[in-house]
């Protein structure tokens, strides 16, 4: 069946509106990273992964670990859209006593593991991939990391193990938006040698335009075809993608939009969503 990329593109902009609403309402969140990672999560959940509210509690479904847990608003938006929980739940985001807290919480339906402390997800995913290989389920494991996160040494322990165990059912994605909280990644801690690093650890290295749903989908298809090694997709994204005044601005790592900024951002996202459907 031919995939409807037009609808997938439109969904990305709709998901961004959900995330924007969460951050604006709660007056907290990480909107810049949400917007850069949105297409990655959208393509994985809506075009690649076999995971639904119906099979999530049963063995054999695909897994996703959001290692860059601060982009939780994007994850909750996708899970809500998939029917894991009602939209009204998102109104409690970051409110007192809510389980919808500012980092992934596996008390929320659809969330595999708690995250938020960077550098954990890859090794957790190695364990999941080993388990699914033992189970013979054919399930695939995806882990989404930030590019600033790659400075954590524990990432490279996981990379080493993934390569050692030749986990072809494991696919890591790097949200390469080139910005972290203090500024550009190349100024804070250079990450441009990634290809050589991942290759040296025994990984299949792919690149994709990270805010382009067809390109991402194609990269994930290629990762399925790779045998004998895990794949990393380095997804070149734009922080704040979709809202022109947020794009490539480090300040939008966790800035909360004013009323005026919210209105402008929402209008632009709605306009872009509509344009996808024309």
């Amino acid at each position, binding site marked *: 069946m031919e995939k409807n990329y037009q609808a997938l593109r439109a969904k990305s902009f709709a998901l961004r509106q959900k995330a924007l609403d969460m951050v604006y309402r709660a007056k907290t969140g990480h909107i810049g990273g949400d917007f850069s990672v949105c297409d990655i999560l959208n393509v994985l959940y809506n075009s690649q992964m076999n995971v639904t509210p119906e099979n999530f509690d049963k063995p054999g479904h695909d*897994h996703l670990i959001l290692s860059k847990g601060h982009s939780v608003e994007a994850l909750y938006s996708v899970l809500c859209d998939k029917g894991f929980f009602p939209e009204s739940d998102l109104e409690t985001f970051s409110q007192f006593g809510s389980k919808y807290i500012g980092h992934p919480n596996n008390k929320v339906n659809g969330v595999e593991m708690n995250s938020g402390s960077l550098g*954990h997800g*890859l*090794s957790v995913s190695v364990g*999941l991939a080993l*388990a699914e290989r033992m189970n013979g389920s054919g399930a695939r494991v995806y882990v989404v990391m930030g590019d600033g996160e790659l400075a954590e040494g524990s990432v490279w*322990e996981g990379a080493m*193990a993934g390569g050692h165990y030749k986990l072809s059912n494991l696919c890591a994605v790097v949200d390469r938006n080139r910005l972290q909280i203090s500024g550009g990644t190349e100024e804070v801690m250079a990450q441009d040698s990634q290809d050589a690093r991942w290759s040296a650890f025994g990984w299949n290295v792919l690149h994709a335009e990270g805010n382009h749903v067809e390109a991402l989908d194609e990269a994930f298809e290629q990762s399925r075809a790779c045998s004998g090694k895990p794949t990393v997709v380095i997804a070149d994204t734009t922080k704040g993608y979709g809202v022109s005044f947020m794009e490539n601005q480090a300040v939008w790592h966790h800035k909360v939009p004013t009323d005026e900024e919210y209105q402008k951002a929402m209008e632009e996202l709605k306009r872009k969503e509509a344009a996808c459907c024309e």
Partner: protein
Amino acid sequence: MNKIPNRQVICDVLLEHAKEDRDIVVLCSDSRGSASLSGFAEAFPTQFFEMGIAEQSLVSTAAGLARGGKKPFAASPACFLSTRSMEQVKVDVAYSRTNVKLIGISGGVSYGALGMTHHSAQDIAALGSIPGMRVYLPSDRHQTRALMEALLQDDKPAYIRVGRNPVEDIYTPDSMKFELDQAVTLCEGDDLAIIACGEMVKPAVEAAKLLAAEGISVQVLDLYCVKPLDRDAVLNSARKVKALVTVEEHSVIGGMGAMVSQLVAEYCPKRVKNLALPDEPAIAGKSQEVFDYYGLNAEGIAKAARELMGR
């Protein structure tokens, strides 16, 4: 003298169960030899994962395996497992509620002569402070076996610390009384209670004998379940006796003695003396030499008891 270390018993129990339960998996960090798990690796190579010298990855990978339906036992020297991987234990194991059993080998000053890098005098404090983590220090091979059998039946995280060397038996298989999370009363007494865990239980029993000969009636409690602390057992002791002595192979800060003192101070104030390693890098030497130096032996315990009793 028993020649079987507690770590060997852990391997034996896992070997016995792994054939029937193919979800049991073992992970090591280049530590299969020192963990006595080489036999498991050879017998069940598809259920064994070598993670290399990478304790953070060891713990996170174990958590991922658990999330995938496996029953992982991750073994590594207690010093590295408990503090280098503390955040992985906090987030991926305890907070995420994954069924990971952490085996801390060569605990306390087992690696005595290797110095503070290899001493685990902070593991109870570190892991015990994490919500959802259970902490066990079994005293002998029979209790270690019973503990392992019990933990195989549940799906919650736990940390089990054992020493490197064989320890003398406290129990016999026939006399073994074991209920998970319930301390064991080894002898009854009304004057004083000695509460011990791990390798310190044996000298606690010997100290009680010395004191009995002097007319001091001592209750000895094997508090192998440091967390969840058996509050009833501790408070029942405290209500009965005039004073308590705690003994452990751990820093005096944040260990079993501190937990007991906190409980007793709040609910049944009595004098408590904490015998433990001081807040300093422990002196180097064989375990027994280190214990003797710090008074963590029968005579040291008896001396503390006499002082508390005004003798």
